[in-house]
């Protein structure tokens, strides 16, 4: 068992734990912060899997922007009547389904990919990914720009306050 593996397992443990907390804690903001931890840990895993660039993007986009957004949203929608329980009556169903999903996927991957190993020899640097994107994945990349624009405008239109014009 190499060092990377040990570190990966540690990250994994952190990710799972914090994810669980993020999904269960009663404090809205806490759960957002726990999510940050999870995503960070996942980013760590990325690094260990030789995907540096992805890891950085993950940290920047999520920790940098998404979570901030989320926290703002939480602030904005903080309501006077604080919600009693942070989880709905649906939670047992949810728990079962989540568990089944996890176990099912786990079983699938285990039966499919057991015994395989990752020899991290080809580092996913910004350059290599950039080449890949602009040589081979231009089309989806272009479309993606469209998606972003559309989402942006959609978000603006929807969230504009009723008073204007």
């Amino acid at each position: 068992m190499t060092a990377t593996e040990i570190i990966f397992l540690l990250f994994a443990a952190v990710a799972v734990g914090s994810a669980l907390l993020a999904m269960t804690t009663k404090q809205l903001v806490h759960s957002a912060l726990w999510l940050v931890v999870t995503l960070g840990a996942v980013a760590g895993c990325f690094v260990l899997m030789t995907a540096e660039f992805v890891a950085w993007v993950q940290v920047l986009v999520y920790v940098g922007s998404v979570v901030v957004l989320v926290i703002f949203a939480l602030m904005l929608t903080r309501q006077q009547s604080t919600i009693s329980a942070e989880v709905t009556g649906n939670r047992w169903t949810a728990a079962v389904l989540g568990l089944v999903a996890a176990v099912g996927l786990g079983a699938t991957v285990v039966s499919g990919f057991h015994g395989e190993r990752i020899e991290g020899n080809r580092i996913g640097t910004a350059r290599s990914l950039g080449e890949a994107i602009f040589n081979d994945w231009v089309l989806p990349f272009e479309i993606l720009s469209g998606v972003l624009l559309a989402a942006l405008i959609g978000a603006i239109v929807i969230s504009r306050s009723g008073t204007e014009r």
Partner: protein
Amino acid sequence: MNIPVDWAVVGPAVIISIGALVALLVDAFYHRRTWLGSGLPAGIALVWAGFELFRLHDDIVLLPMGELMFALSLIILGGTLVVVVASNVMNFENAMPPGEYHFLLLAAAAGALMMVAARDLVTLVVALELLSLPSIALVGLRQGDRRAIRSAWTFFLASVVSTAVTLMGISLLYGIAGTLAYEGIDEGLRDTDMPEGVVAVAVVLTIIGLLFKLGAVPFHVWIPDTYLGAPIMVAGFLSSVSKAASLGAVFTLLAIALPEAFDTTSALLAVVAAVTMTVGNLGALRQTNAIGMLAWSSIAQAGFLIVPAAVFTRFGEDSAVQYLAVYVLANLVAFAALAVVLRLRGSTDYSELKGLARTDPPTGVPLVMAALTLAGFPPAVIGLVTKYVVIRPAIEAGETWLAVVMAINVMLGLAYYLRFVAVLVDRPAVDDPYRSPSPPVSIRISKAAVLVGTAGLVALSAWPDLLLSNLP
């Protein structure tokens, strides 16, 4: 290996995207924000894209499933155009910015085109999102309308969840095949030594996103709420264009990437189709609102649409496209006519529609014709013929049970379509609130569009060959 990017294919989509931007900008600087300012450029863009599509016809048909792609792109463009034209009766004045409306509409249309054109899963996913996100925005567009925003929220959450599921499937597929290009996946699946189960999981999860867009049971839950809350023509768009796109995607995916997994997919889809059409029809039985009825019926129709995909025979995609074309036309005629009704009377409840075919033939008669077409019942012969066309693959594939289920569903469908028709041609209420001395021009335009569509249905009914010999 290298992902083939056939730029020729992208042409129409690019034009539409440009059109979308133009519409946005024109509207932004156009002093009085009415439908015309942005609708016109949008319409022009769509028509132009249509020409472009025809120009590229020969290149497109050379691609694998090119015929299908061409036909569906055509349907998508036409459908969107109808939506744009018919949208003009919706009151943009308060709470619905036409520029953004048309921008989002065209963006979604572009996404639809790309879904059909996609030949690798990455493009597919991104295109799917390009279709979804603007649609969601469109649903929630009407401002200060609780119902609209609630629908948007419903649609959004259901959509992102299913996207996540699909992505999970894709990732597994990637793990199995080592690539996300369709041909590559085919090869990968052919010479993989994975257990069947793993492949099955990956395939099913991947397809689910598309089934969701089609509105197959049990991924239909979002449809009734969304259609009822959305601006009416947006509902029309969802029920026609985005269904067309996802159907095209399903076909292409199954035909090029997943022939190996045919046993899994066909068995699954057959069941899904049967359940979907039944649930849709049963759900529609008790509807007393035209849009609610159409929402459920669109679920049922989706069931019929899936059948050819389930049984992949020599008639498969042809019949699907022919059925889809007629369905889209009839459905849009219905929605456009209802848009007029909604504008004039503020509701599409049956109580409002009573005797419409007598008091206001230009909207009522098309509704009757559309309903009969959807029911597949003469005098709308074309509807019946397409029912025949769509039952045929099931029979060819020896799935007689499926054919029988379809038959029974034809009956179920008639039950509520006929109720709708009966309401329309019934003797009108004595004191009819609405008497418009001279309808505004927008309504005239819409009615004209509706009548054109109806004329199309009538023509097809008189001579179904027009459709059946010319679509692929």
